[in-house]
């Protein structure tokens, strides 16, 4: 691991601890000071992810692979959904990449605060680091899926396009969307353990509501803006476009809606988190 430069935490300055009232802003300076902890927690989550599993990291290949096979057979072969002439397996896998990352990051992040209750009630650090670092636990899985996608593209003779260079941009939107939802749900989870039941429901339903097994172009034109209120719609369309180009150009107004929803969720989530944070140690 690279060795980051060190700034002693809080050294020299005077710190005032008192009750904060109303809405609380995010203290980016403090978050920056604690960046090492962020890296460590993310690293820990990645390390322990497949410890004591028989198949280990193979799970990161098996899961998307089997889902791709099933979706290709059901949606591509049996239901015969339109594919614009592209191989259905690539269409599915290109969508599974961001979706799997998103659903994993969202679940990990939502549960993260409650799972760290011990740390929260015994030490101080900016609490935001916990749901934020949990977002990254699936990053290795994502990279493995990307490699798998490359293999699929070779097998199905899908040529590389310049659009592929934009994939990191869409991935960033995906990460931020997971972060936005994760921040909201993790903070809510501290107070309302209902979140535990909501999250699996979200991820299960979300897989079918988001355009993973089908193309979002089958949604009637007049509903598409509305459909894009689900931020993952814009992300998935973007990924498909990066891989297959041409006919898969995203519906840009819809993409903007997705991004706007994501940003709104993120900003309100951060404000809610910071405000609820004051009570975390007392009620967790």
């Amino acid at each position, binding site marked *: 691991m690279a060795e980051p430069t060190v700034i002693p935490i809080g050294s020299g300055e005077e710190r005032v601890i008192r009750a904060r009232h109303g809405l609380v802003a995010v203290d980016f300076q403090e978050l920056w000071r604690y960046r090492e902890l962020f890296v460590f927690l993310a690293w820990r989550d990645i390390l322990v992810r497949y410890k004591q599993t028989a198949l280990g990291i193979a799970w990161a290949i098996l899961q998307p692979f089997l889902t791709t096979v099933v979706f290709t057979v059901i949606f591509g072969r049996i239901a015969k959904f339109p594919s614009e002439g592209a191989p259905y397996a690539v269409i599915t896998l290109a969508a599974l990449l961001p979706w799997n990352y998103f659903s994993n990051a969202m679940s990990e992040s939502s549960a993260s605060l409650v799972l760290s209750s011990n*740390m929260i009630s*015994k030490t101080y650090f900016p609490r935001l680091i916990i749901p934020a670092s949990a977002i990254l636990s699936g990053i290795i899985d994502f990279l493995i899926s990307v490699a798998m996608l490359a293999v699929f593209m070779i097998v199905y003779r899908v040529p590389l396009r310049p659009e592929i260079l934009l994939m990191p941009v869409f991935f960033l939107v995906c990460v931020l969307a997971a972060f936005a939802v994760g921040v909201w749900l993790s903070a809510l989870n501290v107070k309302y353990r209902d979140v535990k039941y909501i999250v699996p429901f979200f991820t299960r339903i979300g897989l079918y509501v988001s355009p993973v097994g089908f193309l979002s172009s089958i949604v009637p034109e007049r509903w598409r803006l509305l459909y894009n209120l689900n931020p993952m719609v814009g992300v998935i369309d973007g990924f498909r476009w990066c891989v297959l180009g041409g006919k898969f150009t995203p519906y840009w107004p819809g993409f903007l809606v997705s991004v706007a929803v994501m940003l709104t969720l993120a900003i309100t989530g951060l404000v809610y988190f910071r405000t609820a944070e004051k009570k975390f140690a007392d009620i967790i």
Partner: protein
Amino acid sequence: MSKPVVSVRGIGKRYTLGIKQDYDTLRDRIAQRAMKLFTGKSENDDAKTFWALRDISFDIAQGEVVGVIGRNGAGKSTLLKVLSQITEPTEGEVRIRGRVASLLEVGTGFHPELTGRENIFLNGAILGMPHSEIRKKFDEIVAFSEVADFIDTPVKRYSSGMYVRLAFAVAAHLDPEILVVDEVLAVGDVAFRKKCMGKMGEVAKGGRTVFFVSHSMSAVQLLCSRGLLLEAGGLKLDAPAHTVVSRYLSNFAASSGEVVDLSAMKRKGTGRALLRTLQIRALDAKGAPTEVAQTGCDLEIKVTVEAVTSVQSVNAAVIVYDSSGYRLIDVNTAIKGCFLELPAGGKSEVRFLLRDTLLNAGTYFVGLWLGVGGVEAIDDIEFAASFEVVHDFRESAHSEVFPGTYKCRFEMQMK
């Protein structure tokens, strides 16, 4: 005097008690809102609040080692949590100059699946130690923890002693300007505890400011220069450590032969059986009770126990502390191979006779404990009563009482 490193002004911390103690569910919340619509009153209005801390003010200068003492529930832990920024005060403010490291529990954030080595880095990061610093001190930490052979084994395979040693080792090598410590010395075996105390003493002598919560009065006296006595959330006394310790100990009832009712005492334990009464009497050489306990007398300590549920293999112990809280005597039934076996509701009286107690004149404190092996503390009263020992002038040609706790009988030749 230079500016204080910690300045506390009128802090208070209020908790809400009652129905909402744990966590809500949305359903409750919705039901409550609905009820409020109809009755104009919510369940929450009935919730009681209580102040865990109230009106606490003090200043701490650089390098002071402060012992925070008080009974369970007096607000010690809450005070440390406020100082280490874990929880926000409801009122008042704290100004802190310098880097704070809090050590309220050893091994915070340890992950069982990670190896000792990995956990050192992780735990260090959680406690605010920069990566480069942990790397620099890594060998020292491993040496201190005495688990070098297992450093690449996941900590879930560690014995609890190894786990604690590793955790304390990381914490002991933190280098903060202000250290906040809660009872962490009460872990591990005796040798390691001694090592920890030594390390704490070093930290204290190194000019750091330390806040130290402990139930061990001798540890407080040994390490601290200043004491804060908390009582029911308020700051009762802020004075030199030894003054605060003796004041704290003087709160416990003195006993001069009468039967002490233990029912209202502060206690810990699972409560499957309860200590009911305690009687301490001094006996003379013929076994007759005397008015006062003299150095070298026999002490008779009678304890009655009542079982709540049926209990087996219960060890009953009597512990005698000196006025600084140092444990002098620990007698128990297990030493004699005897245990209490009681049906629910069953009662028993245990009588200990302590022979030739060569205690110097002074005040002593008696603690009582019921438990099963090292597994379960059934009932535990830290300070149940105190008794006075007076000097036996027949044994001494000198009227002055010399210091020292143990008055060894001795002979002497002079040439």
